[in-house]
Structure formats: C-alpha cells, structure tokens
C-alpha cells in the first residue's frame, strides 16, 4: 500500500511539472500556431533565475513569485522583436526561429552560470518527509502537486470564465475574425506568449529544488512536453493535463520496473494512442 501511494505521488509530481511546461506550449500553439522550440529553455531560465533569486534574497516564496514574470517579460520581448515578423511564413520558419532563440538562451545561461549544476534548497516548511497513508514522502513533492493543480485550475478558469480568456479563445479559433471584431491580435499574441513563458518559468523555479538547475534540462523537458502534447492534442489545456498524467505515470512505473527503458514505455504508450487518435486525445484534425 505504502509503495503504491508513493509511486502514485511520484507520478503526480512529475505530471505536475510536465503540465506547467506543456500547458504553455499548447496555449502558444493554439493562439500563435507556433510550436515554440525555445519553450523548454524558458523553463531552464526559470530554474537558473530561481537559483539566483534564492541566493540573493534567501526567500524561496518571493523567488517563486518574482521570477515567472521576469521570464514572461523576456519571452514577450523576444516574441515582439523576432517572431512577430514571420507569422505569415510556413511553420518551418517559426520552428527554426525558436530553435535559434533556444540556442541563444541556452548558451547565454552557460556563459553566465558555467557548466555546473546549481542546487536550490526548498524552504524550511517544505523540507523533510511527511507521513501520508502509511508512506513516508518528501513534503516538497506534495507541494509540487498542489502547486500544479492550483495553476491548472486557475488557467482553465481564466480561459473559460474571464473576458480576457474569451478574447484569447476567439483569437485561437479564428484570428482574422477576432481582428475584425476589434481584438488587438498582435497584443494578444505577445501577451499569451509571455504568459506561457512565465508558466514555464514557474515550472522551472518549482523544479529547481527537486532536479537542481542544470544545462540540458530545457531540451529534456521540451522533448517530454512534445510527447505530452502529441498524446493530449495541441491547443487543448485538458489534453495537456491528460497527456502529463499519462507520461508521468508511464515514466514513474517504467523507471521502477524497467529502469533502463522508461522512455521506451512512454513511446510505446504514445504509439498506441497515435494509432487510434493521430491528433491526440483532445486535439482536432488540422
């Protein structure tokens, strides 16, 4: 029993982090029709800035609040300076542009921080284990689960229940029509891009105490996030949730029973789903 609870919680914590990244990826695709290859690097940027913020201020909670908007601002600026000019081109150009941005950001972080991984201490209240249903479990991972569920619900409510969310959904559905009806499409795109980067940055700050901040965390998370959105369907927040849970579960149990081949399990699951739903569980045919 204790073992099952532990594995279940591990899967949920991993799924939570994956969701914070893949939700933004999916949102950007829905609104901008761009697959943001640099999305993982914003996650990494969040982790490194989180490390700096904690080191400077000694306040984890403050860092968790301050860093995501900074990452979001970097993202919004990059969108306004580069991506904005090439929306009319075929998708390959946008993918390559974000690939270039990923290289720039990744290498800048390497220049600034050097190649060693940076550890971040969780705040005192989240240190150490806690007993839960007979299992001894690290508090920090429980916090990750709570955080990602809260953020997930908040994002969903924002998109479904607010006026701004309505405009975003309108742009996602038909940007020309939204433009005609008076929505400022360019601004919506920039803000959504920035917000998605902020989500990834939040994921990065939250992940740092668990995984440390290290070079290469961006690409490893973006590949997982791609698998998540392929399973769940691009452009759907619910799809991101479902995909994150499936990938989180497959990786956790795979890592336990077949440690060397956890990724293979994930791909097998993805392959099986694709045979029946080529556009993902919640995606729509393009």
């Amino acid at each position, binding site marked *: 029993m204790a073992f099952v609870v532990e594995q279940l919680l591990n899967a949920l914590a991993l799924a939570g982090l994956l969701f914070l990244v893949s939700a933004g990826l999916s949102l950007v695709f829905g609104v901008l029709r761009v697959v943001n290859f640099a999305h993982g690097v914003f996650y990494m940027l969040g982790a490194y800035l989180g490390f700096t913020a904690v080191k400077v201020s000694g306040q984890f909670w403050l860092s968790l609040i301050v860093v995501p908007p900074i990452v979001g601002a970097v993202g919004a600026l990059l969108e306004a300076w*580069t991506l904005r000019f090439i929306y009319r081109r075929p998708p390959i150009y946008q*993918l390559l542009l974000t*690939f270039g941005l990923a290289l720039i950001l990744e*290498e800048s972080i390497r220049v600034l921080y050097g190649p060693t991984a940076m550890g971040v201490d969780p705040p005192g209240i989240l240190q150490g284990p806690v007993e839960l249903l007979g299992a001894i479990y690290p508090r920090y991972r429980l916090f990750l689960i709570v955080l990602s569920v809260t953020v997930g619900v908040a994002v969903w409510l924002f998109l479904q229940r607010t006026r701004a969310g309505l405009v975003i959904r309108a742009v996602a559905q038909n940007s020309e029509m939204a433009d005609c009806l008076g929505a400022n499409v360019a601004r919506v795109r920039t803000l959504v891009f920035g917000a998605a980067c902020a989500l990834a940055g939040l994921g990065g700050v939250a992940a740092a105490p668990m995984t440390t901040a290290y070079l290469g965390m961006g690409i490893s998370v973006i590949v997982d996030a791609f698998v998540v959105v392929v399973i769940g369907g691009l452009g759907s927040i619910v799809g991101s949730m479902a995909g994150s849970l499936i990938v989180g579960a497959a990786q956790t149990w795979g890592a336990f029973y077949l440690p060397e081949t956890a990724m293979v399990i994930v791909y097998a699951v993805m392959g099986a789903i694709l045979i029946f739903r080529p556009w993902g569980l919640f995606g729509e045919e393009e």
Partner: protein
Amino acid sequence: MTPARTRALALAVLGALALLPWVLARYQLSILVDLLIFGLFAMSLDLILGYTGMVSFGHAAYFGLGAYGSALVLIHFEQPVPVALLAGALLAGLVAAPVGWFSTRATGIYFAMLTLAFAQLLYTVAYKWRELTGGSDGIAGVPKTTLFWGGPSLAEPRLFYFLVAACVVLSLVACRALVRSPFGRALQAIRENERRFVSLGRDPRPFKVVVFVIAAVFAGLAGALFAPFRGFASPEVMFWVLSGQGLMMVITGGIGTLVGPVLGAMVFILVQEILSSYTEHWMLFTGVIFVLIVIFLPGGVVGTTRRWLEAPR
C-alpha cells in the same frame, strides 16, 4: 539559368573538386571533407523538407545510425570502407522504415514533434547501450581501412577525399534524378496540396514513408563517411542540435534546390569553424545568425541569388 549555363557551372564545380586536393593544405582538405559530408546530410534532408514539405526534426538520428553502423563494421570486421558505408546506410534505412511509418500517421507540426521524439529515443539508446556503443564515450579509433579487398589504404587523405567527393556527387545526381522522376513529381504534388493529391485518388502515405527512408539512407551514408573520417562515432552525432542545424543548412542554402543545402552546409560549417576559433561560445552566435537568416533571407542563398539573377533590369 539556362541548361547550358547549368552544365557549364556543374563542370566547373567538378573540375574544382578534382583540382582542390592538389592545391589545399592537409588541414584545409580535411575541412573540405567535413563540408562535403555535412552537405550530403543537408541534401538528404532537403528531399523530405524541400520536396515533400515534411519538417523532420530528427534527421540527425539517421546520420548517427550511419556513423555507428559504419564504425562497428570497421572496428569489428575490418572490411573495406565501402562495405561499412553500405552497412551504415542500410542500418539508417532499416530504422527509418518503422519510424517513418509511425510518424507519417501525423502531418505538419505533429510529424516534426514525432520525428524529434523518436530521434531522442535513438539518442538515449546510443547513450545507454554501453556494451555496443560505448555509451557517452562513443566508439573511438575507427580505422580508415581500404578502398576494396586488398586495395589501397584510405589513410591517404587525398584518396579518402575522392571517395567522399564521389559519394556526394553521385548522391546529388541520384537525388536530382529522383525528384525529376514521376515519384519525385508526386512528392512535390503532396507538398503543394496534399488534399488535392488525396482527392485525385492517391494515398500520400506510401510516398511519404518511402521518401523518408530514402532520405534516411543518404543521411546514413553521410554518417557512415563521418565515422572513419573523424575516427569516432559518439551520441553527439545523433543529438537534436544537429537535426536543427540540418534544417538550418537547408534554409540557409535554399529549400527545395538540392544544391542549395550543400552550399548552406558549407557556409554553416565554415562560419562555425571560424567562430569556434575565436570563442568557445560559438553556439550563441550561431543562434543569432539563425534568427537573422530566418527573418531576412527566407529563400536562402540559392533562392535569393536566383531571384536576383532573374529579376528584370
């Protein structure tokens, strides 16, 4: 350009390729070999990217499979290099078949993400399968064996260069014939309007799978040349960065031109070579150049030159 001018240009290039090894210093010749190998890699990617309109973000995997296949054959069986080339290209094609079959179930950006995911999977396998691939160290000491059984040793740099040049020129000729064949026309029809292709009563998927495998075979050939040339095969050659760079070479040179990507690869490798001699953070500048090229040079070198040549004066 008129056919006569194209022919003249092709002859000039062939002449230059034949003469260069006698002019260049040893180090320069080795850079030229590098340029040709990556040119072949970029050209193979153009078959799917430029002619079929499919964005593969995992093409480095087949380059890497070619490199590993050839390295293993050379180290364990000590066969002539052409046997290793065949083995590498075949291995790439064999793995590409199921990956292509899966990935072409999806289109557009889903296809790109799937190819990247499979490539990272192959990268992980190369990284973890220590007994066969040497893990992160890779396979070192890959020998440049002979040209054929009992033939001359390819350790002679000029001979190796000519082998590489011959492979690249022949591949270019083969790919050119391929894209001009009815099969190639069908690919371009898929690129232009896949729905129309379907409504004309053809199923695009077999075409896509076949061209994916063909492109992987040529990428595998490039990788199979790379392993004996550099003397090693490591997981680095399957890394996502190389896949992205491949796409960038195609775009830089000119998408859908075959020759363009070869030029693009050359420009790209040279710039990298120059940058890396000045700074270890060349990736940063490569990134900046990427961004600028994507924004300001959409047709690539060849496309832009062509437009400039054909512009009314």
